[in-house]
């Protein structure tokens, strides 16, 4: 039996909330706006929970048809929804974390202007994200894909009167579009070769195809193009540059969109298309390489950042790199597992950072923080949970997910593992650096516990805080209100316990998560050898079908687990050394490294390179050719020219109307002569 769960309601409920708040919210009180937003978002979450309760009565995969959309000859795309274990996980993450962040935002944005607009955009984002996750064909998913890009743009540029925020929104949208271009071409190829964009149809058509061993086959092309789209959305090399700038938006936006949900859309899409990717090993390798490099690259930049949100932004890019690495070695469920735990601890990190910023009335520069753990204890403890989770320390959530990724990466190629472990070290280091700089030591900022209205707006730094961010002088450092703290606590609990459903066999667990997602990824995996060893190694390729734990090799796995833990703790120790024990050490090392340090500090000058290579020529070319040349020179000139021409012609001709009777007579005579000549010519032809 296949009951109709009315899945379409899940995206539509936040849409209704967005419509109400968007159209009428200007006149509502804040309480009314809050109620509408939370009601509809909460309703979506409640429905998601209900779907979970009904889940085990469904046949997999469960599709629901809502309405016909495109029927063009043999091509068909409908408003239809798709539910399987993967969608269920994503659904719960998006609605659950989204709902918590909505609650948090009520407190965070309470003093801001445009309150109703914020919640309208947030609900709109939820609508698009849920459409993306529940779509049953690529076209509907693309609508959600584009829509979350739009919502991201609207929310990043929420304080649009600020130049940097508006530019950041534009940058995010434009860089996303470059990825979307790849996505679109992939869709076109899918339509051309498989005649449909429906998941079931496409995957059934692709499944019998054999794996492409050489580079440039159809599936490889499609997969690489899909990867381009995913890079744009999930901020991987080369399209990651928008994410650090996106920190201009309010912190709940960073938490929801740029940590927990939107940026994971790329990972979700790749996992959903695993059937295609598994048959294009070259593409998978590219995915893994990009993921690994991005993880390392972003982590290295995160080490030197001084703005608390920027550190977390680069951390997000780095963790997404891990997820891509996992997908690249066909460990899709490991990637999704990390996606889920990452949503918990990164969302928590951002929210807690927002709480810190709120408590410091807008300060974001870590060099002016310190010693806050006694003053904002709830924030401190929740952030601690998140920091330990992301560093990958047992038994927090991040430990299990990251470890599984590293183990699976090792089985594909030890280089991935090595870089992954080093990145884990960097991750631990910069996260604990953040932890120590913010909560320990001496308070280095300007605020005091007494009344002090110093606003941080005139501080320069790696990320000047928005003038809007909390310019209320509550006076001194204060803890956030309960409405902000409760989501922090819930997420902290999840960060601690969230990994326990994925405990691997080597540690005595059952890895229920892997088993749960097994049916999604197992049934269609081809017979492919994933082992790309660099040189002939002695280790036998272990086929790792999803959902099954190898009964052998636990020893090696435990050793690697130990290495990961050691690495995490060494990062903690080093951070303690540098930022608590001997705080002058970082400066000395920075001086010693000189030019290299400077390069990393300037984010390897990637933005500048892009500006010179792509942006400037494009802008100049548009200005010179398209604007001056074509728009002004051709189109405007044609219109103006035809008007001028008409005017000139009539100017000349009007001299005929001189009012002089004799000239009229002259014209008549000429006309008569012409007519006579013509008639004579006709007669004598």
């Amino acid at each position, binding site marked *: 039996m296949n009951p109709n769960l009315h899945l379409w309601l899940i995206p539509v409920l936040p849409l209704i909330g967005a419509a109400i708040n968007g159209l009428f919210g200007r006149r509502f009180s804040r309480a009314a706006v809050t109620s509408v937003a939370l009601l509809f978002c909460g309703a979506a979450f409640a429905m998601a929970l209900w779907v979970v309760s009904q889940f085990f009565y469904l046949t997999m995969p469960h599709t629901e048809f809502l309405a016909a959309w495109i029927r063009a000859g043999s091509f068909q795309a409908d408003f239809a929804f798709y539910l399987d274990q993967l969608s269920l996980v994503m659904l719960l993450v998006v609605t659950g974390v989204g709902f918590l962040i909505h609650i948090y935002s009520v407190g965070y944005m309470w003093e801001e202007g445009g309150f109703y607009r914020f919640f309208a955009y947030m609900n709109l984002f939820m609508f698009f994200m849920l459409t993306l996750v529940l779509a049953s064909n690529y076209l509907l998913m693309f609508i959600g894909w584009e829509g979350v890009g739009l919502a991201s743009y609207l929310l990043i540029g929420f304080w649009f009167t600020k130049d940097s925020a508006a530019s950041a929104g534009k940058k995010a949208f434009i860089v996303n579009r470059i990825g979307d271009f790849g996505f679109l071409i992939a869709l076109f190829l899918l339509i051309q070769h498989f005649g449909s964009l429906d998941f079931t149809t496409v995957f059934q058509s692709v499944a019998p195809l054999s794996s492409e061993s050489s580079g440039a086959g159809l599936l490889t092309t499609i997969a690489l193009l899909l990867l381009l789209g995913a890079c744009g959305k999930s901020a991987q090399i080369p399209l990651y540059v928008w994410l650090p700038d996106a920190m201009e938006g309010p912190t709940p936006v960073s938490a929801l969109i740029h940590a927990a949900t939107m940026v994971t859309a790329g990972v979700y899409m790749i996992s959903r298309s695993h059937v295609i990717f598994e048959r294009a090993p070259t593409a998978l390798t590219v995915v893994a390489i990009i993921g690994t490099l991005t993880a390392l690259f972003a982590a290295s930049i995160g080490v030197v950042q001084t703005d608390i949100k920027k550190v977390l932004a680069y951390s997000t890019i780095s963790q997404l790199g891990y997820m891509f690495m996992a997908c690249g070695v066909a460990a899709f469920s490991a990637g999704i597992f990390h996606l889920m735990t990452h949503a918990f601890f990164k969302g928590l990190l951002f929210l807690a950072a927002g709480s810190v910023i709120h408590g410091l009335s807008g300060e974001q520069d870590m060099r002016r923080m310190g010693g806050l753990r006694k003053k904002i204890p709830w924030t401190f403890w929740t952030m601690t949970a998140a920091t330990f989770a992301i560093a990958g320390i047992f038994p927090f959530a991040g430990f299990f997910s990251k470890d599984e990724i590293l183990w699976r990466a090792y089985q594909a190629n030890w280089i991935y593992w090595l870089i992954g472990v080093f990145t884990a070290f960097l991750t631990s280091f910069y996260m604990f650096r953040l932890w120590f700089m913010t909560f320990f030591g001496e308070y280095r900022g300007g605020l005091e516990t007494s009344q002090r209205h110093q606003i941080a707006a005139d501080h320069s730094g790696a990320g000047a805080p928005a003038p809007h961010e909390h310019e209320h002088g509550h006076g001194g450092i204060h803890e956030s209100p309960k409405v902000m703290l409760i989501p922090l606590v819930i997420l902290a609990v999840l960060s601690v316990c969230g990994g326990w459903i994925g405990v691997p066999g080597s540690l005595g667990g059952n890895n229920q998560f892997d088993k749960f997602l097994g049916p999604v990824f197992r049934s269609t995996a081809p017979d492919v050898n994933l082992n790309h060893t660099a040189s002939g190694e002695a280790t036998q390729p272990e086929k790792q079908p999803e959902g099954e734990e190898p009964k052998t090799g636990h020893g090696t796995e435990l050793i690697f687990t130990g290495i990961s833990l050691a690495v995490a703790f060494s990062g903690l120790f080093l951070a303690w050394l540098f930022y608590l024990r001997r705080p002058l050490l970082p400066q000395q090392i920075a001086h010693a490294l000189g030019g290299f340090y400077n390069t990393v500090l300037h984010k390897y000058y990637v933005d500048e390179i892009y500006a010179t290579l792509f942006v400037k020529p494009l802008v100049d070319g548009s200005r010179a050719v398209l604007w001056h040349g074509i728009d002004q020179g051709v189109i405007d000139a044609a219109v103006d020219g035809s008007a001028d021409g008409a005017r000139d012609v009539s100017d000349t001709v009007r001299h005929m109307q*001189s009012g*002089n009777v*004799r*000239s009229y*007579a*002259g*014209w008549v*005579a*000429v*006309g*008569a*002569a*012409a007519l*006579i*000549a013509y008639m*004579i010519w006709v007669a004598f032809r």
Partner: protein
Amino acid sequence: MLHLILFSVFGLICAAAAVNLLVQSHPINSALSLVVVMGSLAVEYLLLGAEFVAAVQVIVYAGAIMVLFVFVIMLLNAGKEERTKGSRVSLFIGIPGVTIGSVLMAWVLITHSGTRSVEAGALPGDPRQIAQLLFHQFLLPFEVTSILVLIAIMGAVVLAARPEALQPTEEKN
């Protein structure tokens, strides 16, 4: 032979008077030249045997219309023409135009009118036959032209009347 001589003589008078009309600067002189033209044309009609038309020409054209012209010239006290800056168009485009047109027409007429000649008195100028035509076949044009003349009379009276003469008469107290 006589026909040809008479034609030439009166033709030359006609042409000379027409040129004189152009050359004279005082309109009264032009009017009198026009009378000469009409007179000589009447003789030409007689040569062709159209006595009725010749008579009507003299009575109506030369006798009534030209009198009207002279009358108006004297009423308006028209003097010599002043030289005003005329229209360049009429001089430089019109004159060549009319020259070309007339040359073309003349060429066509001369080369294609055949070698037939017209005898003197070729037309039966019997008024009775003309009347027959006028009141039988051309009855409708005849009646229409009578209405036309009526309208012309009314129009001329209204147009030429003095403005105050057209005001409604004032209340006599």
